[in-house]
């Protein structure tokens, strides 16, 4: 079984700080990591390979330093890594990114049975790339999958959607985005880490190798662009009541009842 996992190297978002005057992100000194949801997709791939055998290819579009993320994925157990990197890929929105990924995946030999993606990245949070890649490759797609069962030529998956659990059967090859729920904590063996960084090779492909023209990709190939990135100023609607303690207590109870937070006998809802 041949599985492709799409990964992205992202800044470690919880550690990002804001420049409070300019309301922009300070990226300096923030570590780069594999997008955590992509790690879950890789987990799912490793599980499947454990059950069915086969190979896992990890693929990423990014600047040269994304190689680190790919090597980490190799250390976790992926068999092969491909880095799609080219100065003309810069400034890509999700559409342009998906276009590049889909082109590269379409060129793989052997053809993958399954493509796994995270549901969204922690930096952009769009959730677009999985569905867009599936569209371009004309593959059936299910998102937020929590269980995968393989059959001949088909897949049965369970996914969570708006509080419902759906069981869906689709043809292979297919693309799935994997729910965070499938995460299994894994520890890296130091030997695997050393091996991934010292011994294994990574295939690099640019726009020429993919047969893409510069205006199909990157900023030129994008349909959207980010105008501004900022944290909205906190809006707190607060009201300060004043008066005697007797009055305050009665007024607060009245307000809570009005908001149906407590009912009129004073019990919690």
């Amino acid at each position, binding site marked *: 079984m041949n599985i492709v996992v799409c990964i992205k190297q992202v800044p470690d978002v919880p550690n990002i700080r804001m420049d409070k005057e300019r309301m922009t992100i300070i990226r300096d000194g923030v570590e780069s990591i594999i997008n955590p949801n992509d790690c879950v997709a890789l987990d799912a791939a490793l599980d499947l390979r454990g059950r069915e055998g086969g190979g896992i290819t990890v693929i990423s579009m990014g600047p040269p330093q994304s190689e680190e993320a790919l090597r980490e994925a190799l250390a976790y157990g992926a068999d092969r890594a491909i880095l799609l990197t080219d100065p003309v890929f810069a400034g890509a929105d999700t559409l342009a990114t998906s276009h590049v990924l889909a082109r590269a995946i379409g060129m793989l030999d052997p053809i993958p049975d399954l493509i796994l993606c995270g549901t969204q990245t922690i930096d952009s949070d769009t959730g677009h790339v999985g569905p867009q890649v599936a569209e371009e490759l004309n593959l059936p797609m299910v998102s937020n999958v929590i269980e995968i069962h393989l059959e001949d030529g088909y897949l049965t998956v369970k996914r969570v959607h708006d509080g419902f659990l759906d069981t869906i059967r689709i043809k292979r090859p297919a693309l799935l985005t994997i729910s965070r729920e499938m995460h299994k904590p894994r520890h890296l*063996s*130091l*030997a695997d880490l050393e091996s991934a960084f010292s011994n294994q090779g990574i295939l690099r492909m640019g726009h020429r190798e993919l047969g893409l023209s510069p205006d199909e990709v990157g900023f030129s190939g994008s349909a959207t662009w980010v105008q501004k990135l900022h944290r909205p100023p906190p809006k707190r609607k607060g009201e300060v009541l004043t008066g005697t303690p007797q009055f305050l207590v009665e007024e607060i109870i009245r307000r809570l009842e009005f908001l149906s937070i407590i009912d009129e006998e004073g019990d919690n809802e």
Partner: protein
Amino acid sequence: MASEMDATERFPMEIAREMASLKYFGLEIPMQYGGAGLDSVSSAIVIEEISRVSAAMGLCISVHNSVSAYPVYEFGTEEQRKTFLLPLASGEKIGTFCLTEPNAGSDAASLETTAIRVGDEYILNGNKIFATNGGVSGINLIFAFTTPDEGKRNYTVFIVESETEGLERGDAEDLMGMRGNPVCSIALNDCRIPIGNRLGEEGQGLKIALSSLNGGRIGIAAQSLGIAQAALDVSLRYARDRYQFGSPIVEIGAIKNYLADMATRIDAARLLTYRASNLRDRGMGHGKESAMAKLFASEIAVDATRMGIQIHGGYGYTKAYPIERYYRDAKVCEIYEGTSEVQRMVIARSLIKG
């Protein structure tokens, strides 16, 4: 978990086993012998990171790797590597380095453990103390001397497995810090071991000791770095959150000075450590450099933890905060694997020899 280890003095064997499966007990041992095949700089980083959380566990890993497993790799025959290095690198057996005795600390050459050759065996007699990892070890490197001629001492290293008849482990020491690491005495009473357990040749003992200590000192430097860095991290966090006189105490000049001094000297210690490891990776001599790293890093570990408690104030003196454990852990770094006084001697000798 680290504070539990300190409070209960229990060595967390389950964690050690998991670390073993991830090759933490074979850091610089080549992959063909079951190790992680890391270079010295990477190994120093691993030890620092573990020590940042638990200095006692960092000590276990550092000593096992640099002065127990590595000497077996460096000086062992292929046969010895198969028999002893494989279980050490896989962590199946934890290793010790037994040089110190009741009457032989810094004056290592006055050790009294004897090894008498009888046919195909050696009979060992002596008392080793302060053996790090001793309480859970499977393989012990014992430093003894043989006497081929009257009055001449040939220092020799022997690999003695813990189950060997005649090897007795004492109770774990009740220590100020590094609690949970099972440091104990190891007594040898007419302990018979096959000649195949001798590491290197008779008379090579001092050479093996000095060579191992070069790597060991880098390990302790890394361990000290971990402790110092932990002290800085918690102190910075505390100083930001603690308000006195209407502002966080991080705005007070005296506190800023402490933090700046800690950070600067920790950085310097780190660079000294990486410089020594880098020389080692390039196969170059690094005796003076590893002594410098160990000396400097251990002293900043003690100073940084002291300043850290000061920054924490009264709360720093309680066990509710980890800084007091870091302070207790740090002190021994100035003592073991060669006291600071010995390190200065080593450095001065290197300068004088020119």
